[in-house]
């Protein structure tokens, strides 16, 4: 299943947030969206998944989601959004409970996603007992449980310390290599973007427009051996973002 964003514009009252976003997300592709803070990255992601309605334009699903897909567009949030009153297992079963699955079937899915995210030993732990990295792993497991066609990741690693971020990035690469998921990945961290993105979209400051689109052709599993090229890409991205970020930084918020 592909996604096509057509002339997407969004306003909050009088405030123009996004203007004419045109973007295609192909199957098995990770599209990273970077931009200065407040440029509407997260708003864009909410529009894509149908959590907010765009003022103008539309998001088109092209093709049917794969068979067995329970929730085609599935989010992973920056703050993990785990229910503190449910165990790891309970948090995953939450998203399977309204689907009319048999108990055995749901149990099977839970065991499977916990194994794939290396969480099998933590099935009965409470969220408060887990570190940030583990919490985000649970959120990834929860997303995998509904077999999404596209994962919408809203700064998934931004609440984590840099070491955990590094580990989780490796996990995501590994997961992509084995499963080949499709994702829209919003981040402000350019290192993440060049490590994970097949396509990197640079947004301008508010109102956000697509300023540039950068493709990286190096396969994900070989990127660690191409430090130089990635570094150049990152510098290129930063040169595009720098002025936007500086201008955005000096704007008054309610101006």
């Amino acid at each position, binding site marked *: 299943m592909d996604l096509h964003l057509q002339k997407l514009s969004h306003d909050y009252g009088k405030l123009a947030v996004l203007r004419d976003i045109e973007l295609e997300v192909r199957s098995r592709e990770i599209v990273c969206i970077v931009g200065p803070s407040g440029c509407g990255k997260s708003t864009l992601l909410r529009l894509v*998944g149908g*959590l907010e309605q765009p003022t103008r334009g539309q998001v088109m699903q092209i093709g049917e989601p794969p068979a067995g897909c*329970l*929730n085609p*567009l599935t989010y992973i*949030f920056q703050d993990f*959004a785990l*229910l503190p009153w449910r165990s790891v297992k309970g948090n995953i079963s939450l*998203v399977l409970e309204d689907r009319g699955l048999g108990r055995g079937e749901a149990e099977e899915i839970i065991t499977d996603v916990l194994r794939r995210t290396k969480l099998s030993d933590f099935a009965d732990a409470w969220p*408060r007992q887990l570190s940030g990295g583990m919490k985000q792993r649970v959120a990834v497991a929860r997303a995998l449980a509904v077999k999404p066609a596209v994962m919408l990741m809203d700064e998934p690693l931004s609440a984590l310390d840099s070491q955990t971020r590094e580990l989780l990035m490796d996990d995501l690469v590994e997961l992509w290599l084995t499963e080949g998921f499709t994702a829209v990945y919003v981040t402000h961290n350019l290192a993440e973007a060049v490590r994970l993105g097949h396509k990197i979209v640079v947004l301008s400051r508010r109102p956000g427009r697509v300023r540039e689109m950068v493709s990286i052709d190096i396969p994900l599993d070989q990127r660690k051996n191409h430090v130089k090229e990635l570094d150049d890409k990152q510098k290129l991205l930063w040169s595009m973002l720098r002025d936007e970020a500086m201008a955005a930084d000096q704007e008054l918020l309610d101006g």
Partner: protein
Amino acid sequence: MADTRPISSQSQSAEEPAKTVPFRGGGFVVKPLGVIAPLVFVVIIALWELGSQTGFISGLVLPSPSESFEAFRQLFDSGLLFVHLSASLQRIVIGWTVGSTLGIIVGLMIGLSSVARAGLAPLVSAIFPIPKIALLPLFIIWFGIGEGSKVATILFGTFFPTVITTYGGVDNVDRNLIRMGQSFGLSWMSIVRKIILPGALPAILSGCRISGSIAIILLVAAEMIGAEFGIGAYILMAGSLFATDQLIAGVAILSVMGLCFAWVIGRAEKYFLNWRT
């Protein structure tokens, strides 16, 4: 000792006086000290008894604990304790349960529906501060002099604070969790049952603590008007006869009722909120 030598080259020199950095953290940390609470009670009652025995506290001013206990024993022996207690418990249990249940339902409605909020929230704010005991004469006209008016007083008294704490609790549920539920396509009912209700439960339970105390206060007030039996009636009777020993015994029973109620809520919190630390 102050001279101009640079500190870095002289860090471990023998002449420099050395001392450990004094500890100045601590304080403001609440430690559980299980023995102190009962000890305070025992010491106060012992001093009070001592004062009465030595004549320092006149029996006319305040009866001694042993006299009050004796009054309690008489009440127990006469079998009236259970008559009073069951009358009171029945009123408070019905009034509090119905009042809290309705309060939680209306509170959820206000928390979940904009229409209900616009219509009911101002009404609740307007009626909440009215002392329900002032309405007792009206309740007597509406619900009769018997059980009806007493239960109604407790019911109304517990209803309003429960509404307010419940919708406050719903308002405080993390919006991101609700958005998460929506993004996974959970039904409205599921979001309410599995996300909003558990999220509001801490607030609802602390609301129950408050409404429980209000219920006891209103119980006594209602029983002082036209009740034959009940702890409040017993205290009123003792008061009008200036039988201060019985009065103290009655008040002690109320205090124990409050403690029992707080204990039950505490257990409920432990059970339902075991996911918190």
